[in-house]
């Protein structure tokens, strides 16, 4: 599978409120892309727009260079933010039904349902009603519903919300596996550390506009340099506060996390630290995703 999802100038207004404001970015196949932004940034609206679930005032959604229509959407998988399954329908029958709505034969839908329920560790619940399942298992079934027809593009709105670490690992593994198999995977999340573990690339939006997009590695190594400095006996890193071009981003248990301006020479920082006491740690660090996020939105 090869695919490329392109969003071009998506605009959506609700009366006076502008949810999407000329948003453009693309999602290539083969990697897990995290979709980030503060609450109300327009993430859900963007995802819904891909499936035609929200009317756009302007802009286009393209898949492999062509406008997305009904036939393309059948080959996409969607996990909405507020989970969507028939509460009183049996898990197995529900997944088969959704598979068939995505143009699978009855036989293929049944086989895929069985395989996915086994893969996600809920095979024994195929005969249960969805409403009888725990939150974590409902989430697994919801993921299976997005995957059952073997989609080329997978869009998941907060798939990790409210899961325990086992659940996060299980779903995270599936997402990475799908991306490796050539699927295009875009998912939104608030938990930045989880996104950092799972994603090769992120797209951050705010107020319906693109803020930053790129590979996590590139984003982490770009921008201002970061230093972690530990001085024995020093708890509050007061020595670093007065160096021009250096900002203390945080102090955690004696380790000061410093952000260096371009004009600052790291040697001068080292000298200042040595002046304050014995230096026990002096490390250049990558930017954390949370920092990328905060700085991008600042």
């Amino acid at each position, binding site marked *: 599978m090869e695919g490329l999802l392109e969003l071009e100038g998506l605009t959506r*207004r*609700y*009366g006076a409120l502008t949810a999407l404001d000329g948003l453009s970015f693309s999602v290539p196949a083969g990697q897990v892309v995290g979709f980030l932004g503060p609450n109300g940034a327009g993430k859900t609206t963007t995802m*819904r727009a891909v*499936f*035609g*679930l*929200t009317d756009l005032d302007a802009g286009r959604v393209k898949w492999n260079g062509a406008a997305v*229509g*009904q*036939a393309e*959407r*059948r080959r*996409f998988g*969607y996990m*909405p933010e*507020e*989970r*969507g*399954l*028939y*509460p*009183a*329908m049996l898990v197995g029958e529900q997944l088969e*039904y*959704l598979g*068939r*709505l*995505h*143009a699978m*034969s*009855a036989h293929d839908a049944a086989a895929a349902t069985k395989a996915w329920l086994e893969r996600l560790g809920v095979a024994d619940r195929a005969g249960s009603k969805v409403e009888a399942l725990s939150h974590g298992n409902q989430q697994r079934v919801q993921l299976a*519903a*997005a995957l059952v027809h073997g989609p080329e593009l997978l869009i998941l709105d907060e798939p990790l919300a409210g899961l325990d670490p086992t659940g996060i690992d299980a779903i995270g593994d599936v997402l990475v596996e799908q991306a490796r198999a050539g699927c295009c995977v875009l998912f939104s999340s608030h938990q930045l550390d989880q996104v950092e573990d799972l994603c090769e690339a992120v797209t951050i939006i705010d107020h319906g506009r693109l803020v930053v997009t790129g590979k996590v590695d590139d984003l982490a190594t770009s921008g201002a340099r970061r230093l972690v400095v530990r001085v024995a006996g020093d708890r509050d890193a007061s020595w670093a506060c007065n160096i021009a071009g250096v900002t203390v981003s945080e102090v955690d248990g004696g380790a000061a996390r410093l952000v260096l301006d371009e004009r600052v020479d790291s040697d001068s920082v080292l000298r200042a630290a040595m002046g304050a006491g014995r230096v026990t740690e002096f490390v250049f660090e990558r930017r954390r995703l949370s920092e990328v996020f905060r700085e991008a939105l600042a």
Partner: protein
Amino acid sequence: MNGPIILVILAVVVALRVWLRRRRRSNRNQSRAPAGSALLKGDVGLVAAREVRERVRGKVFRVGTLLILLVVAGAIVVPVLNSGKSRPQRVGVVGAFPAPLREAVVASATSVGITVHLVPEADADAAHRDLRSGRIDLAIVDGRELIVDKAIGSAVTSTTAQLVLSVSKNLGLAEAVESAGLSATQAAELAGAKALPVKSLQPGTAKGATQTTSTVGLILVFIMLTQYNTWILIGVMEEKSSRVVEVLLAAMRPVQLLAGKVLGIGLVAFAQAALVVAFALGLAEAVGSDLLRGTAPLVLVSTLVWLVLGYAFYCWVYAAAGSMAERQDQVQSLAVPLSLPIIFGYVMALIAAGSGSPSTFFKVLAYLPPTAPFAMPVLVGLGAVTWWEFAASAAVSIVCTVGMARLASSVYRRAILRTGRRVQLRELFSRTA
């Protein structure tokens, strides 16, 4: 009693399955790229098949069907038990009772459809005792005095009362003939007098059997329209509130989901109605009920026709309403105004069926799609419509149904994905929507 229900339902489900499999097979041979009409039908069929499966599986459906069958069985069997099989009336005779009087009594009984047994009594006291104990229903003393246990009011229509009134009249006549001193020939002529035929300016009104059939049909239409439209209302609302609609609409168009839903529930409704009618016909035949004689079968057929037309009209309205709500309390505020035309049509039709003479206003109701499903079958039962009037009303209903379906799909498409508070109609058609 579950047997026939399950059979009919199985037949519908199997037919749907076979049809869908054929569709799928033919689809597979075609190119899959465009979402052509074949795929469209396939989706609608899938949605409809799911509705049928889930609904028929539900307890509500099974218990409901059983209840309707019980009511119908009651409506057919109870009148049979009450009528026709009335016991012979026993008439005690005291003193002289010449043959002409005896013949007059038997003739009176025959004229009201009753058989009599004459019981000789020793004297008036014995007759009184037997009257009190209920061993006899009427005593005739010396051919000139009639005695019953309890006084008979003018409104009483019991078998005994009919017999007593008839005997009283005929014995009175016999006495008059005797005292007038008429010859035997003249007396016989008088006795053989026939009532003059009466012509009427208006056609006769339905009575008895047809009226009951009309009423039972009305109740059936009312129950089914209410029940299945509520299913649609709640079903659409639940799809919206559970957000499953987002997953579904990511793969198909709103109108496909809507059409599949109303088709599926409609199939269940029609299968149930057909089962009830088949059951009614079979049972009526078996117990020899006269409920299905005369114009009654016509009433039944038109009831079925109007059940389909009524469902087709209302289902869209209810689906659109369901798409505007996502909570039970929001649904209630919509369901009440929607049910008013149904209740109005039902009550007006019950009144008209009871009175036997439809007003002009009622005839107008028979041409309005919301009330026609109730009014038209009643007019058919009363013999107050021609076939072309029936067809005209059906045509009006079909045209309005098409319009309603379009309007409802438009409302549904705009409202089904809006969450939060209840969607107002004016929001749907304003420019910012």
